[in-house]
């Protein structure tokens, strides 16, 4: 006997941080292992129309959870733990019954012989229907029929909201790439939008209820710097949320070579041209400044004789008024902006 129309509804569980559950331990719904063996209860005892006792049998009902309890991660916001099962049976003629239970074995007696359709709906504590199961059973006289009904989450669509955060600034060209793959292997891409530096979000609806595998990657350009794979459960009318916080990124690294290029405002290479070692008394000497590395700079000249300034042109004629003796001729050249300078010296004797 199988449930012919299993239905899923959603429950909510948030997923926080990489692989860290946000405490939705109530989780599931899934663990509906309530075993109900039903028998006809006195209060719900079915009767024939004419009131005469007819041949009857009994029914022992067992309710199974239709969901596995695997390592669920991203779960919906709806409480998927059954708090109540509402059971109804429809038998031959107008025969029928309704009852509810929080679980356990349910046994229904004095059921009319014939074919009965048994339906079980699961409700959570908020009285939201979260599961459904149905089974047909044949009741025979004097016998107790046993039937197991698998209650499954309701089918339909739900919503999924995902957010990804990472250290802002560490990823130059951030892109979140994600796919959602159902149990049949069919995948759909999730389109994330970067909402801020270091944050991206996805929001989707009308996603068929069920379990999915979420593959999510944070990329820096072409390079994956972080990623995660998780199960996602979508339930009917439920919102499943998840947040991934990639604190430690596997940064793709690069290398830089730093080369120093000195811009030293190098001294001017100054030379004195035309200078002789001796100068006859009463004669003159003309010397010229030579600067090889001026590089177009406007130059300012200052000539010194024994430390005393004697001229400020690029050439200097001097000596006719010098006494006999020894002299040191210095030339100091400045770039007009003062950023460079240089000097040269020459010793001479007036005889």
């Amino acid at each position, binding site marked *: 006997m199988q449930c012919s129309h299993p239905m899923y509804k959603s429950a909510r569980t948030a997923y926080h941080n990489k692989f860290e559950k946000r405490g939705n331990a109530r989780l599931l719904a899934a663990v509906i292992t309530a075993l109900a063996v039903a028998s006809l209860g006195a209060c719900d005892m079915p009767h024939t129309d004419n009131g005469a006792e007819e041949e009857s049998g009994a029914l022992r009902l067992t309710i199974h959870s239709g969901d596995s309890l695997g390592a669920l991660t991203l779960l919906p916001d709806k409480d998927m733990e059954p708090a109540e099962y509402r059971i109804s049976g429809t038998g031959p003629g107008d025969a029928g019954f309704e009852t509810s239970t929080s679980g356990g074995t349910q046994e229904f007696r004095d059921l009319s012989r014939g074919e009965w359709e048994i339906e079980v709906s699961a409700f959570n504590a908020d009285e939201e229907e979260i599961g459904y199961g149905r089974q047909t059973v044949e009741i025979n006289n004097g016998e107790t029929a046993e039937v197991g009904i698998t209650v499954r989450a309701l089918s339909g669509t739900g919503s999924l909201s995902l957010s990804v955060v990472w250290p802002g600034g560490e990823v130059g060209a951030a892109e979140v790439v994600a796919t959602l793959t159902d149990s049949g292997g069919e995948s759909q891409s999730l389109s994330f939008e970067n909402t801020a530096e270091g944050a991206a979000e996805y929001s989707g609806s009308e996603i068929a209820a069920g379990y999915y595998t979420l593959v999510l990657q944070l990329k820096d350009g072409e390079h994956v710097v972080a990623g995660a794979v998780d199960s996602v459960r979508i339930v009917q009318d439920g919102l499943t949320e998840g947040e991934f916080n990639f604190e430690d990124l596997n940064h793709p690294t690069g290398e830089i070579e730093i080369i120093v290029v000195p811009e030293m405002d190098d001294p001017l290479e100054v030379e004195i041209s035309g200078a002789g070692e001796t100068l006859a008394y009463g004669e003159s000497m003309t010397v010229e400044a030579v600067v090889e590395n001026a590089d177009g700079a406007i130059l300012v000249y200052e000539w010194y004789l*024994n430390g005393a300034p004697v001229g400020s042109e690029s050439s200097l004629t001097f000596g006719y008024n010098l006494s*006999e003796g020894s002299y*040191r001729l210095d030339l100091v050249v400045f770039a007009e902006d*003062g*950023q460079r*300078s240089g000097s040269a010296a020459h010793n001479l004797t*007036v*005889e």
Partner: protein
Amino acid sequence: MKVQYPPVHAGASPVRRRSLGRRVLVVLVIVFMPAVLTVSCSQPIGGGGDEGSLSIGLGDVAAASTYGDQGLEPESYLFSGTGPNGETFSVVSSEEKTTVPGLKSGEWEVRVEGLNGNDEVILAGEGTVEVLPFEDAAVELALRPVDGIGAIEVRAAWKADHTLDPSVTITVTGSDGQSETLTAAANSGAAEKRIEELPTGYYRVAVRLYDGEEEVAGSAHTVRIVNGSGVKLNSELDALNKVGKPIEINGEQFTIAWDAPADSEPEVYRVYYRQRGEYHWELIEAIDAQSNPQYTVTKDTLSYGTYELAVSSVSKGEESALHSSMADSAQPESGWYVRWEGP
């Protein structure tokens, strides 16, 4: 009354006398004065003629090094960077380049500092580089001198005996033309001055040595101040235009004496004088050579006045260079001249 003389060279051509090494000593013996003055002439002066020599050396150049520039040669470099999410790196190297692996992709602010031996930053440069995953990038950073302050320590040196009343001034002129002149105390042929708190940059430094009121030597230099540096500038003032020591003579005559040349036997000595401040020498008299040569100046041969004196030797018809009382080898070494006013 006579002191030792160094030899005098005889036979030297007056024109080329500087190239001849032999010397004559002149001793001045002043009658009526207890003092004996000696002149030792190692540097002959202009001779009896008025000719000199001039050699023009085209391309004969002398380039002075810039003081302080060597202070811009870092001993090490500090490479540092700040990248994505506050990531940093820091590398010290003695090389002018380095490679930094394992940097997170993204924009990096990179800085390089050149450090001197005292770990003071003398050069710096910075830039931005984009680090791409799995790629090698290169960045060239221009390194420039950093702003700061430094100091100049000027030391002037000369032969103490060549001056009588020395003093030194130091003029520091910045690239903006602003200048400051400082006086450095002279002591035993040297003067030192340290000038602090100078902003980094180029300066002209002029050193001038005075003897009394007369400027006798000097030099000028370019100095580069680097942050944290103390630039030592040595001004070696080897050749002074000496002022000389005045010898007061109140007698009617005085005697000078000199050493005979050691390597020649001159036939004649010639004694010269010139007015203080004049260029040309005038012959007083030629005298026969003698073992202890000397000559007495009287009012009959020279009128009272202020004179420098010199002597030459003549050997085989050739006259040596003149050796004067102002020569470096004279005694005293400051040089001397007579201020002869008579009794």
